[in-house]
């Protein structure tokens, strides 16, 4: 491309300005990637929300329990392949800041309902035999340096008199997809029920239901809730993804928050680069006049300006995303597992580059059209 040299020369005309503009793109792209990742982490809570699964909670709220006796009734509903139940333990390991979710599970059905979180069969067999056994997600095990056979004390303030519950780590599970949650910690219902006060016995937190077919989600959900209507523990059943979305709403309207911050970033960037391009074109009025006098067409002049702003956008965007690629994993571990799914996916990267190019094109367009419309005689007269 024989015009590239001219474009490049114009790009490097004011090096400080170029660096600052690249810097704004970098920061904005970094922020964009970060926001997208946080949004992803919230909306993806707990691995891929499967359309083939339902979650049943107490109609009042997720923190209200429901009876274990519902299990067999749910299992009998047509379209239900398997059902398993959970309690939230809410304990801590060593330090209150070390957050990770602990679930009381039903070992009999866990693997039928959530097959994507895989525990090697030998480890699973040991777990079943061990009343105080526990299974940890690979991420959590790695985070605390746990090995199979370790004895793990978990402190709880919710159940009983405080003090630590001791567990034996019998196995480690791995997710099968990149965004499966590998931070959970599981232990057995029988052990839990034995130790909790009487008033809590026989009550579980929520059910997870595996469907014969995702198409039946609505019918089965309605059937479950009808089954327990007018009982002291009415239920609310949703698909797993709907449940995850409701869960996120607990934290306030994250989506809206992120969207607003994102828009502010977008417009600020647009104004900053638009202004920079406008100034940089204006101070070149005479030169643009010369180029046109020599015989450069209007569309070439527009092309030069657009190429310049797009080049800045692309380079700045790539730098910002590169920074994000390095920083987001670091940030993820600094958050102590609070947001387990900080993943900078290819689609986020692609959207971010598209976004950068859109800002580049938009900010170059007006000055470029101005340059295009510029009349040579006026350009050369202006001092």
């Amino acid at each position: 491309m024989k015009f590239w040299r001219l474009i490049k020369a114009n790009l490097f005309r004011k090096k400080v300005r170029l660096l600052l503009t690249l810097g704004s793109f970098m920061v904005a792209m970094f922020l964009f990637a970060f926001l997208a990742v946080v949004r992803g982490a919230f909306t993806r809570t707990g691995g891929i929300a499967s359309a083939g699964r339902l979650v049943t909670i107490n109609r009042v709220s997720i923190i209200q329990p429901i009876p274990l006796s519902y299990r067999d009734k749910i299992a009998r509903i047509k379209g239900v392949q398997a059902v398993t139940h959970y309690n939230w333990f809410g304990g801590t390991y060593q330090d209150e800041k070390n957050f990770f979710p602990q679930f009381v599970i039903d070992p009999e059905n866990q693997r039928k309902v959530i097959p994507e979180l895989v525990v090697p069969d030998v480890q699973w067999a040991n777990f079943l035999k061990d009343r105080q056994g526990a299974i940890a997600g690979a991420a959590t095990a790695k985070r605390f340096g746990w090995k199979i056979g370790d004895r793990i004390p978990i402190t709880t303030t919710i159940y009983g008199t405080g003090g630590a519950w001791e567990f034996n780590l019998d196995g480690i599970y791995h997710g099968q997809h990149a965004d499966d949650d590998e931070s959970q910690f599981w232990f057995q219902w029988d052990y839990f029920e034995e130790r909790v006060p009487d008033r809590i016995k026989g009550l579980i937190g929520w059910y997870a239901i595996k469907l014969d077919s995702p198409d039946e989600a609505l019918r089965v959900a309605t059937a479950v809730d009808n089954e327990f209507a007018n009982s002291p523990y009415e239920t609310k059943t949703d698909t797993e993804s709907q449940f995850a979305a409701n869960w996120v709403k607990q934290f306030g309207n994250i989506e809206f928050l992120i969207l607003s911050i994102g828009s502010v970033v977008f417009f600020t960037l647009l104004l900053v680069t638009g202004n920079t391009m406008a100034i940089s074109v204006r101070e070149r009025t005479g030169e643009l006049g010369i180029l046109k006098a020599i015989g450069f067409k209007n569309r070439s002049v527009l092309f030069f300006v657009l190429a310049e702003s797009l080049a800045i956008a692309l380079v700045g965007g790539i730098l910002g995303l590169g920074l994000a690629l390095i920083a987001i994993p670091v940030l993820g571990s600094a958050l102590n597992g609070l947001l387990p799914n900080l993943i900078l996916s290819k689609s986020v990267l692609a959207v971010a580059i598209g976004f950068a190019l859109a800002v580049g094109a938009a900010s170059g367009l007006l000055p470029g059209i101005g340059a295009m419309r510029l009349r040579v005689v006026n350009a050369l007269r202006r001092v």
Partner: protein
Amino acid sequence: MVSVNNNGQSSALIQVRGLNKTYRRGGEEIQVLQGLNLDVDKGDFVGFMGPSGSGKTTLLNLMGGLDVPTAGTISVAGDEITHMSSGKLTEWRARHVGFVFQMYNLIPVLTAYQNVELPLLLTRLSGTERRQHVEAALSIVGLAGRSNHFPRQLSGGQEQRVAIARAIVSDPTFLLCDEPTGDLDRKSADEIMALISELVAKHAKTVLMVTHDPLVAARAQTVLHLEKGVLVEAAKSQHGVVVGGGA
């Protein structure tokens, strides 16, 4: 070839007939050119003089296809340029006109070489051919050794020579120079004028030049004065240029 007051047929390279240019500023109309006629032959070197605001730049811009007249026609080598679309006019300029201005001449971020190469980027010439042309043009203006210098590393006179090299590199039909020595000291101005004279004498270029400086104008074969919107021939007239006005 010499004829006076020509507003009819001729075989001149550049033929200007009944040229009018009126600027509108606010409600006010400024009539700058009023029925101007001019014939210029190939190889002529014409100097234009006149008081500030008399319309010299206006005339040059019109002949260079940078602006369109209010009335009248300009034809160059048989092409009538006054009715060309702006896209066509741009192409025409690239092929036929070499410009040298007083200011803003060079692109500061490009080297002398790259500045001279600019017009050739609009042609189909290969990289090697472009190199040959640029080197030839730079050596005609005596700056072969300065190819890689940026404008800010050159003196005013040298910058103007680079601009001349750029104006001649694509071998245009004629050169338009608007006060090419306006910003230069006497010595540099003399050097530039020696160069332009040489382009006319040795390389048979056709040059139209605006200047305020009588010493500079004296280099031209013919000096024309712009007065009240028409051209008037000055005393020193040797050959080739026909002027007229009124119509």
